[in-house]
């Protein structure tokens, strides 16, 4: 039993030692500067340790990565659990596990050596291509959905002609906007290939397996009875999925998203190599084409210089950042467990 408690002892020790070395920083420099000031100049004289830009950087890349991993991950999980035949699943699941097993430094290498030069020389073209790839199918879906909604409001006698006319009308409204947005994106000049967009895409790719596997577990655990009940009532597959299965699994899906966030926020190598490492808040804050710096990259990068002056604010501020990371991951862990337990208690009651 003593041995079994090593994990508890380990996590306790981790907290104790990180806090022990982080407190001197807050005693030396106070709390306000760290969280509110955006000027990070630890080697200037006098040094300033404002980590706001770095916190914003971490938040920005996490947001970006969830924007990539969330929709794709949930869609893939739904596809895996309900739509694909069993034999295809046997192949897709190992592929997802392989994606999860690739070391983060390989992702970082790919981001630095392949994606960054591509973004820098052909950034606008890539953005335009990505926009077309996403807005194409989504646009088609939107046109058909809105067209069918619009035509259902027309009187009955128009029938099929009315559907086509409604779709065409919606298309005329939407398509110019899509085309103009595509051309505007195509003309963007990317100044630096190592930026928040690069990192967001790669981090999204890394968080994708986590989101997919946890969501798929949640969707599987909904059980056949609910699905069969919906089908028995005459629902189509789309209606079953959107109105029965996904809402029933929503706590699991929320937990999956939180786990994806945890993976993205704690990632070091990719952001260290490919985020540009500029401790500044992008102007405007959502400009993903600017280089940013994250907490993890600062800890990894600055420790080399800080180690020579152990005991100074420079050394301890890195532990303060580690404390922030630890607190965030602990908080998200608790939230995800709470969400999962609430979901499971609701399904059993």
């Amino acid at each position, binding site marked *: 039993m003593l041995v079994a408690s090593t994990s508890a002892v380990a996590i306790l020790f981790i907290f104790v030692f990180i806090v022990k070395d982080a407190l001197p920083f807050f005693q030396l420099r106070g709390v306000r500067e760290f969280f509110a000031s955006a000027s990070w100049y630890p080697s200037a004289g006098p040094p300033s340790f404002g980590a706001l830009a770095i916190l914003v950087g971490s938040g920005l890349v996490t947001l970006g990565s969830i924007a990539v991993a969330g929709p794709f991950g949930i869609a893939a999980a739904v596809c895996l659990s309900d739509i694909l035949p069993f034999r295809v699943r046997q192949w897709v699941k190992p592929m997802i596990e392989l994606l999860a097993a690739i070391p983060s430094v390989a992702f970082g290498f790919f981001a630095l050596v392949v994606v960054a030069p591509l973004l820098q020389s052909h950034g606008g073209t890539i953005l335009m291509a990505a926009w077309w790839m996403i807005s194409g199918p989504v646009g088609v879906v939107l046109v058909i959905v809105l067209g069918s909604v619009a035509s259902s409001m027309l009187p009955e006698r128009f029938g099929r002609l009315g559907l086509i006319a409604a779709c065409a009308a919606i298309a005329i409204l939407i398509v110019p906007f899509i085309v103009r947005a595509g051309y505007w994106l195509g003309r963007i000049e990317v100044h630096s290939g190592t930026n928040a967009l690069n990192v967001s895409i790669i981090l999204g790719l890394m968080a994708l397996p986590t989101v997919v596997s946890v969501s798929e577990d949640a969707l599987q655990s909904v059980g056949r009875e609910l699905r069969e009940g919906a089908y028995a009532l005459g629902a189509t597959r789309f209606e079953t999925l959107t109105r029965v299965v996904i809402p029933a699994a929503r706590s699991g899906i929320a937990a999956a998203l939180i786990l994806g966030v945890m993976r993205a926020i704690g990632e070091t*190598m990719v952001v260290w190599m490919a985020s540009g490492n500029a401790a500044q808040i992008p102007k405007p804050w959502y400009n993903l084409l600017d280089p940013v710096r994250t907490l993890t990259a600062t800890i*990894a990068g600055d420790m080399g210089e800080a180690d020579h002056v152990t005991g100074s604010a420079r050394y301890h501020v890195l532990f303060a950042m580690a404390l922030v990371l630890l607190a965030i991951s602990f908080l998200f862990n608790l939230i995800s467990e709470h969400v999962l337990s609430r979901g499971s208690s609701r399904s059993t009651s």
Partner: protein
Amino acid sequence: MLDRLFTGLGISSIVLMAVALLVLLAPIVVRGVGAFVFRGTVEHRKVLAKEFGRGKPEQLSLDVKRAVEARRPVYNMISRFENDLETRGFAAKRKYAAALDELKDVLASLLGPEPNTPQPPLLREQYGHTRWDRAQVELDELLLRSEYDFSDPTVMGRQVKVPRAKDFEGTELVELFPYVEQHLSEMLLPRWTFYWGFLLDDSRDAHFFGGIWPELLGTFYLTLGAILCALPLGVISAIYIVEYARADSRVVRLIRTCISTLAGVPSIVFGLFGLAFFINALSVSQSKSVLAGALTLALLILPLVIRSAEEALRAVPKAYKEAAYSLGAGKWRTICAVSLPAAMPGILTGVVISMGRAAGETAPIIFTAAVSVGGALTLWDTFAEPTPALPWNIYNLCTEHQAADEIRHVQYGMVLTLVALVLVLNSLAIALRARMSQRLRS
């Protein structure tokens, strides 16, 4: 119809993931193989013979003679030009001095130092280009010089390539350039080589020559050390959770929360903890060492090992245990003789997956075990000495190396080795699991 669109959306996201995996792995595999299989020049064979004592000496001396013969006209042209300049006086010398120096530098990096001149101190300057593809890039550098064209006032200087022959227009040296272009393959004698030594040779002169053996060995030590520390702790913890504790007791719930918290801690925080606890507080070693790194990595993979061991132990059918009890075995005896062997495949799967994880992690070893330059360690050294490791050196070579562009093939080779290692381990685990589930079903 909406139904089918929805299906299409789901399938397209899976296809996108597959494409992303392919796009990620394709360049790594293709260019990584280029670190092993490439057209190596006579310089490469010279390095292998002199630094690592490999190759056929007679064939090599024949090759060297042929190469020297092919290069002689080049050096003759240059020395003739220099003598000519001497006779023409200072004005002529000044006009061509800078261009000539540049030309000689490029030639030296392409072909190596001129014969019968003193050996340069740096190893990388003692040989020409060892790879034919890099030699081609250097040939471009020889033939074309890059210049900035400021004539267009709307743009801040455009980079243009100017033929270097223009610098020597009107002199004899102009013929050097077409000669080198046509006869480079005779000067360097490229041949397809399979450099298996990439995995087994030490690196020389900051990875300019040689292989990645110290990094491979370091990764091996770290992974083995991590799993040696984590396996006993993990298995015993799992045995306690499954066999001894009452299910759903507070202790078990607390341990589970701790395990999941430990699993969620960012890897860089593990690295800082390793520095603060193992090195500064406990002083397991004076400064960085493989021991501290292995202990830190063990903490990182502990949750994985516990989870997979727990799953494996729970999957042991109750019938086995009840049969053992009915034969009069005690609890501990049952565990050792029945449960553990039955759960061994599952535990092994977990071990293999954890090894793959530990091999690929960089952040925990940055502060605790990894150095950029170092030799292969012996087993005794690992308790006190740091080591190069594959993940850390990949980062180092990409970002902090003086000539990162020159050694791209080494970077790709390292990444391929690491990814191949991890994927092989994971495929092993998947195969193990598939065989286990087959056996359970039958």
